[in-house]
C-alpha cells in the first residue's frame, strides 16, 4: 500500500514547532516527518532530534585514495624513466611529498562533496509533497504515513495554525 505525504505550511517557526510537537505526541516516528525551510534555522529550533550523519568519514577515504595515487604517480614516473636530472637522486622524495600533498587534499575535497550530496539524500528526482512558497519564507512540515493515518496527521498539522495542509504521494 502506498504511503501518503501530508504537508502542512506555516508562517512562523513557532507554529511549525507546535506542529512538530503534535506529531511527536501522536507518536509519529522521527524519521517519518521532515521540516522544510527556506532559511537555515539553528539545529533543534523546531524541537526535532539532532541530525545524524557520517560525513566525516568521506574526507578520510578521499585523502587515502588521493595520497595513494600521488605516490604511485610520483615514484612511478621517476622510476619508469631513470634519467639523471640536475644530479638529483632518481627517486627524489621532496617532489613526491609536494605532489601527494596536493592530490591528498584534492581527493579529500572531492569525496567530501560527494559525501555532502549523498548524506543530504540528493539528488532527488521528484520533489514529492513540496510547495514553492517554502523558499519564500513559509515553513513546511511534511509527514509520510500510511493511508489510514492521513486524516489524523492532517488534523495534527492543521491544529498548529497551518495556513494550508496538502496531501501528496510519499
Amino acid at each position, binding site marked *: 500500500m502506498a504511503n501518503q505525504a501530508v504537508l502542512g505550511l506555516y508562517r512562523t517557526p513557532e507554529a511549525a514547532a507546535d506542529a512538530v510537537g503534535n506529531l511527536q505526541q501522536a507518536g509519529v516516528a522521527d524519521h517519518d516527518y521532515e521540516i522544510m525551510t527556506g532559511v537555515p534555522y539553528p539545529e533543534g529550533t523546531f524541537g526535532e532530534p539532532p541530525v545524524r550523519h557520517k560525513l566525516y568519514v568521506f574526507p578520510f577515504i578521499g585523502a587515502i585514495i588521493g595520497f595513494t595515487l600521488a605516490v604511485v604517480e610520483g615514484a612511478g614516473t621517476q622510476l619508469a*624513466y631513470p*634519467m*639523471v*636530472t*640536475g*644530479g*638529483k637522486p632518481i627517486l627524489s622524495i621532496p617532489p613526491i611529498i609536494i605532489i601527494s600533498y596536493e592530490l591528498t587534499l584534492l581527493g579529500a575535497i572531492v569525496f567530501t562533496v560527494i559525501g555532502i550530496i549523498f548524506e543530504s539524500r540528493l539528488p532527488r528526482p521528484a520533489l514529492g509533497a513540496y510547495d514553492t512558497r517554502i523558499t519564500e519564507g513559509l515553513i513546511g512540515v511534511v509527514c509520510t504515513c500510511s493511508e489510514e493515518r492521513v486524516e489524523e496527521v492532517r488534523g495534527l498539522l492543521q491544529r498548529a495554525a497551518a495556513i494550508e495542509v496538502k496531501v501528496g504521494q510519499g
Partner: protein
Amino acid sequence: MTTVRSGWDHKWSMVVDIDRCTGCQACVVACQAENNVPINTEDIFKQSRAIEWIRIERYWEGEFPDVKARYLPAMCQHCGNAPCEPVCPVYATYHNNEGLNVQVYNRCIGTRFCANNCPFEMRFFNWWQPVWPESLRNQLNPDVTVRNRGIMEKCTFCVQRIRRAERKAIQEERDVKDGEFAPACVQACPTGTLVFGNSNDPESRVAQLMKPDHPRRYRLLEHLGTEPNVVYLKKVDPYLEEAQNGSH
C-alpha cells in the same frame, strides 16, 4: 639508443686555456656552420636574441690609456649537476651517461624554465622559425636537426661527431682514440685554446690539463656547485688580478 659499448667509460670534457685565446671568433663561425645555427642579423643582435652556441665574451679592463681586452670563450658547461635539467617538466633535457647535458628538441615545449636556471646563460630559444637564404640551403649539415620555432637549443659538444667516432670505433672494435675527432669549435681554433676529449681516460690531453692541482685551473661560478664539465685555465700576466675580477 646510446652507442656506448660495454667497457667504455666516456666523459666528454673541454679545457679552455684563456691564455691562448685571441678572440678571433673562428670557433663561433665553425659552430654556426656545423650545427645549422640560424643566421644572426644585426637587428637580432640588437634585440639580444642572437643564437651562438659558443660565444666570445669580451671584458674591458683597466683605465684608458692602458686598457686590456679580456676574452672568455663560453659555451654550455655541461654541468655535472646541471640546474637546467630538473626544472624541465617534460624531460626535454637530461644528463646522459657520457657526461653530456642533452637537449631533446622534439620533447621541448618551450617553458624556457631551463634558460632561466642556467647561470651561464648558454641556452637559446628559437623565437622565430629559422630561415636561410636560398643560396645557403644546401650547406646545412645533414647530421644536425634544423630546430623548429618555440624550442630551446644549446651547445651539444657536437654530439653528432662524437657518435660518428664511436660508431667507427665499434666497427673497428676498439676504443675511441684521444684526439681522433673534435667538435667544430676545437677543430677551428687556430691557437689551440680549446682542448676536447674523454676526461675519464687519464692519458688524454684533457685529463692532463684539467687535473685538480693544475695551478691555473678554475671553473665558472664554482660557488653554485654545478660541477661544470668545462675547465678554464687562467691568463698568465701581470694583470692576473683584474683578469679574475673581470671574468669572475
